[in-house]
């Protein structure tokens, strides 16, 4: 890792300290860094945040798994056949173009106020990207490799398991990585808008309503770290497991 990587974050923190200690920004907009850190500590030490963190994690990850479990096979199926792809292309593009948040009321009507609606939203967010990437992953299978399969007289199942599927993996993984981020965004948003008892989105929203800026910033940081770290971890896994990508 390069040393320069630390410069940006450090500058940002210095800026924060300067803005607050020189009273350029009022504490009601941006509280001092120390009080936000103290709040972070308090949230974890008291165990207060754990319920919210757990709820958000649970909705996010279950939704993610559902989205991937549906998106990968359906997407690959679509990529396999030009006819299926052509007949579904407009539908997929249309649903992909709908801003996901406009569907919140629909999910609310279908699944109610509980976890089911929020898990479904998370699944939806992941599904869209995973499906499309799996579809293109299959469509972009190297022509030459398919000819290799043909000259070696591979069966259709062998062609799929030994040629098409591994060839599509780099693109599928890329789609999952985007899906991870998107479904987290949607889960947090749904917790803000659709109402819930526990969840990071709910806590941020409630803290803002009563101008508890320390708690709001602390929770935003937690949500941000969640998104950032999940992405980094997946990328790490991806580059190891799919070592041939881009080579």
């Amino acid at each position, binding site marked *: 890792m390069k040393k320069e990587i630390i410069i940006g974050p450090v500058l940002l923190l210095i800026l924060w300290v300067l803005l607050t200690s020189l009273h350029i920004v009022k504490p009601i907009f941006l509280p001092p860094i120390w009080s936000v850190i103290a709040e972070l500590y308090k949230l974890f030490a008291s165990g207060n945040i754990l319920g919210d963190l757990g709820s958000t994690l649970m909705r996010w990850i279950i939704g993610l798994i559902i989205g991937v479990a549906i998106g990968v096979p359906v997407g690959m199926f679509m990529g396999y056949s030009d006819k299926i792809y052509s007949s579904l292309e407009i539908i997929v593009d249309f649903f992909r173009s709908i801003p996901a948040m406009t569907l919140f009321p629909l999910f609310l009507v279908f699944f109610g106020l509980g976890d089911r609606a929020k898990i479904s939203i998370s699944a939806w967010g992941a599904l869209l990207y995973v499906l499309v990437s799996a579809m293109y992953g299959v469509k972009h299978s190297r*022509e*030459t490799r398919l000819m*290799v399969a043909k*000259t070696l007289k591979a069966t259709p199942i062998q062609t799929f398991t*030994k*040629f098409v599927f*591994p060839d599509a993996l780099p693109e599928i993984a890329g789609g999952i990585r985007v899906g991870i981020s998107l479904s987290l965004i949607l889960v947090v948003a749904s917790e803000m808008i659709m109402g819930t008892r526990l969840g990071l989105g709910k806590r941020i929203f409630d803290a803002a309503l009563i101008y508890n800026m320390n708690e709001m910033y602390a929770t935003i940081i937690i949500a941000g770290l969640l998104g950032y770290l999940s992405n980094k971890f997946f990328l790490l896994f991806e580059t190891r497991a799919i*070592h*041939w990508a881009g080579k």
Partner: protein
Amino acid sequence: MNEYIKIENVSKTFLNATEKNRRVEVLNGFTLTVHKGEFLTFFGPNACGKTTLLSIVAGLILTNSGSVLIDGKPPSQAKIGFVFQNYQNSLLPWRTNIDNVALSLELEGISKKQRLGNTRDFLRKLDVEIPEGSYPYQLSGGQQQLLCIARALISDPDVLVMDEPFNQLDFQTRMGMNEKIQDIWIKTGKTILFVSHDLEEAILLADRVVLLTKRPARISKILENKFSRPRKSRVLQNEDFFKLRSEALNIFDKVLRE
């Protein structure tokens, strides 16, 4: 003379890519007989139909009319070893080198232990040394193409078809590969159909060089090369080789001006 591969009266047209209702005639009544164990090379103008011809022999595409028989079998039933020009896109980069070579054995359902043993023996027989556990993208271009050749040969195919296999390699590597493929051919005794876009290479490797016309490809002339094997690249400087090359070049020149 035995008739190991019989290509008889093969015709093939394709839809024109730009003008949809026009058909392009790539082969028209192409006929050729290949002997068992022969090293046959093809040389012809760009886009004359060489690759189409090989693809038909390999069973990758069907003819419009005419027939191909390999040892009495149609291509769909014959065992084909095919080596493509683009080795990168032809190898499976998620598999280790040895697993790439063992691919066809795996498709045939041979157990892991046995196919690894067979593959090691086979690579030793071909005198091909490649790090087993690393991946194709870690190898040089020449080594990758050797991997493809070994993969194509390991299941003992009826014919080895090679479509401009050394095009993407640098000059030095090509020289080495030209010697290596002769060595492999001598060791395995395979019948090889080899398309080259390099006239010297086509002559150097061949028992017979098939010189083709512009599209639709017909046989313009078949030249025999009786130089003793193995032919090192020194042969290129030999006077008789030079004459053969001049003859081929004259024919090619005429073909282009037709």
